[in-house]
């Protein structure tokens, strides 16, 4: 079982869940499982070319998957993924 943490801005597209458990061998599979459970998340994670959007980072534990094998990074039982989108608020 892999746990994916959903950031607060995206929770309304994931039935208000803070985390979602999936079964997956690698990061790509895990994110695909997530978007098949919660299809409304899809445009917030993938761009038109079906690549992870550049303003969204995926972390395995505390490490950016970019520093590993990207979406092909292998996962093991109990791993935790975090999705981090850019947010810009602060002044208004």
């Amino acid at each position, binding site marked *: 079982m892999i746990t994916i*943490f959903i950031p607060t801005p995206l929770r309304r597209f994931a039935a208000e869940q803070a985390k979602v458990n999936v079964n997956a061998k690698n990061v790509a599979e895990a994110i695909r499982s997530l978007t098949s459970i919660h299809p409304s998340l899809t445009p917030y994670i993938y761009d038109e070319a079906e690549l992870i959007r550049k*303003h969204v980072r995926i972390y395995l534990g505390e490490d950016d998957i970019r520093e590993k094998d990207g979406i092909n990074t292998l996962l093991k039982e109990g791993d935790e993924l975090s999705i*981090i*989108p850019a947010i810009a*608020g*602060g*002044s208004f």
Partner: protein
Amino acid sequence: MRQTLEEIKFSKEELERYSRHLIIPEFNIEGQKRLKHARVLVVGTGGLGAPLLLYLTAAGVGTIGIVDFDIVDYSNLQRQVLFTTADVGRPKVEAARERLSALNPFVQFEVFNTRLDSTNALDIISQFDIVADGTDNFPTRYLVNDACVLAGKVNVFASIFRFEGQASVFNYLYADGSRGPNYRDLFPTPPPPGLVPSCAEGGVIGVLPGILGSLQANEVIKVVSGVGEPLAGRFFQFDAAEFKTRIFKISKDPENPLTGENPTQTELIDYEFFCGIDLTHTTMHNAESNGQLSVTALNDWIKSGKDFQLIDVREPYEFEIANIGGTLIPKGEILKHLEKIDPHKDVAFLCRSGKRSQDVIDLLQMEYGLKNLYNIAGGILAWADEIDPGMAKY
């Protein structure tokens, strides 16, 4: 002439004021001297800027620069604790300077009552040692980041949205002269417009910027005083809803256009364009021209008894605060309710400021080829300003 660090002296009053710093063994009078010697620029005097400015002023930073172009508004007071009700209508930098000078008369303030943009950012930022970014939109986030990298300044960053907080120290200068990662290493490009609403559209829990802005002030004080381990090369995430905090590592992106292996950017760019924001949508105010309908023209439509459809694309809780009637279909549900849009009439779309309604029109025109769609420029805020001053603005 700027004093050197060695020339910094304190009066009896200052020593008493800062005594709780001076008795921290790691901080002591050396840390306080560094604070007094420092020139810190705070960009934005809003939700993050308020605690930042209050704590940096109280702590005894020698010179604080303040940049903002805005006027204090009633809707600011829920979180911008720098201002009082009496400040509504005043320029934020003026109200801030007055409040902060009263808090600590030993601090010098340099205010810039202007919008930071590509023409002035390098000039303003170069006058300071360190920058704290408390702005509220992607174009200015990238502008501040790029200007800090180009000018060689540390950028202490925090950002918030509804229940989410993020913080980091970008472009940190290590003892060996190397620099830490910057914002573009984390987020190479901004989200497409419309995918992430601003706080003005999306809302924010009032105390959240207080928490993040205070963390930001703490990082500024650490970087200036050299005490502790700054949040450089790391990224802090706070989920205020679940009370969960996480820290992630930030690595350098070899494709960073400023600091990557093959840098392609050596100056500031047009950040509105970079963020995909087309200003023509928001600057049209006269009209029925180009699909834009001014609130005056809308009022004429209503008064003349014209047969048209008004669709409000805001959320139900916004509609409750202020509305001018019409059919309520929130932006996110528009495709589910296409049948409610009358193809045989002129249809005017309303939101808070005119942005969401334009997004809806762009979608309906592009995807469904609908015609006779009008965007009410300036939204219900313009209606409150120009037609019905008794209406609540939010």
